[in-house]
């Protein structure tokens, strides 16, 4: 009796799912739709889909995402500062443990890679790591905004915008450069200056990694047939992995290069040229 009932329920469930699937695939999509080539091209270049920033200027959607992420993080920090941190105990609770683990992790990373004058670096990589992680996860929310051209786009990760990635890459390089100057003098500054390709590599690494995730997700969502079950793996798992990996990679790179630029650079003694005697030369 129970078995028959369960079979009937399963059949009803399957029929509903199939009916909805057929409805999704067969009914025409409303509104204007862009071809996938344009969508992909615009995800990279942001030529068409601009969003108005308070009616002042037209910006890439990534900048709006960056502001929203910053707002979320500041509100979170404020709530923690006002309601959580005053109640901290020497034996931590779960939430306190999470906060301490995050701070301790970035502290440990900075301390391990760059043992000299790393106070600023600790705070910097903490903020950068949290920002990259949260902003990458932000694209999972899929918040919709209307562009100036009238299309609806979901807000991407801020660092999938080339401008955001360049800003973070250049700032990270600036931290390395001036950290070297302050800690190790002109030698440290020049040492960091030698790696002039660093801001480009860091910027484009971030941009490429996050953009690729965005493109794959965009591609998957573009075709209705692919947008069942698969997004759970592609969207969520890839985004989580990206968030973790990119946060770790950038903070690790910044710490390592900062450590190199802040260490003492001693001049190598010049090797004396020994003049060979005539007899040795003749021999």
């Amino acid at each position: 009796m129970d078995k028959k009932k369960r079979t009937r329920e399963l059949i009803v469930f399957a029929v509903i799912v199939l009916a909805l699937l057929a409805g999704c695939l067969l009914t025409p999509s409303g509104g204007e739709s862009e071809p996938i080539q344009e969508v992909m091209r615009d995800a990279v270049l942001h030529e068409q889909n601009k969003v108005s920033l308070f009616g002042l200027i037209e910006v890439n959607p990534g900048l709006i995402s960056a502001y929203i992420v910053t707002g979320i993080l500041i509100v979170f920090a404020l709530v923690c500062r006002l309601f959580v941190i005053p109640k901290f105990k020497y034996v931590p609770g779960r939430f306190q443990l999470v906060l301490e683990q995050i701070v301790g992790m970035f502290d440990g990373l900075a301390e391990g890679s760059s043992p000299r004058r790393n106070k600023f670096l600790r705070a910097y990589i903490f903020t950068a790591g949290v920002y990259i992680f949260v902003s990458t996860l932000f694209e999972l929310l899929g918040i919709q905004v209307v562009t100036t051209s009238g299309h609806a786009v979901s807000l991407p990760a801020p660092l999938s915008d080339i401008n955001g990635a360049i800003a973070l890459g250049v700032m990270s390089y600036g931290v390395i450069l001036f950290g070297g100057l302050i800690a190790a003098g002109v030698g440290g500054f020049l040492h960091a200056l030698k790696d002039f390709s660093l801001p480009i590599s860091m910027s484009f690494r971030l941009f490429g990694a996050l953009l690729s995730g965005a493109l794959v997700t965009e591609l998957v969502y573009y075709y209705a047939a692919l947008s069942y079950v698969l997004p759970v793996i592609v969207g969520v798992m890839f985004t989580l992995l990206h968030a973790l990996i990119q946060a770790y990679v950038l903070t690790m790179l910044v710490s390592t290069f900062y450590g190199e630029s802040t260490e003492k650079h001693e001049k190598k003694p010049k090797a004396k040229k020994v003049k060979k005697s005539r007899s040795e030369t003749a021999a």
Partner: protein
Amino acid sequence: MPLNINLQQILLHALNFVILFGAMYFLLYKPVKSFMDSRKAHYEKMDEDAKAVLAEAEKTKAGYEAQLKNADEEIARRQREANEALQHAVDERRAQAEQQAGEIVRKAQEDAAREHERVMEQAKGEISELMSAAAEKLVLSSTSDAYDKFLDTAEERKDNG
């Protein structure tokens, strides 16, 4: 610009990040870090206090051990003294006993010598008495025989006669 790179937007992103950095530093990082540092300092102080207490305890233990060692030495010294006193008393008693024994022996020897002399004197007297008795007896026996013979002869002659 290639790739639609826009300097204004780069600066807007940078401004956004700087604001975020300031907020995260003052609202989250610094308070959490200072709390962690204060807790670390607290536990380090506890550790140092514990180490100081431990060092004090070790010192006290060493003092007690030294006292115990001294007590052991004191006990050993007193035991040695007691043994020596005992040995001395034993030796004294033994000497006294030997002296007493010597006196007893000497006295016994003197008594024995005196008894010997007395016995010898007594024996001498008895021997002389016995000798005189024997001599007397001998004399008497020889005279009586001659007398008897005389009497016998006299009687025979009387009978014959």
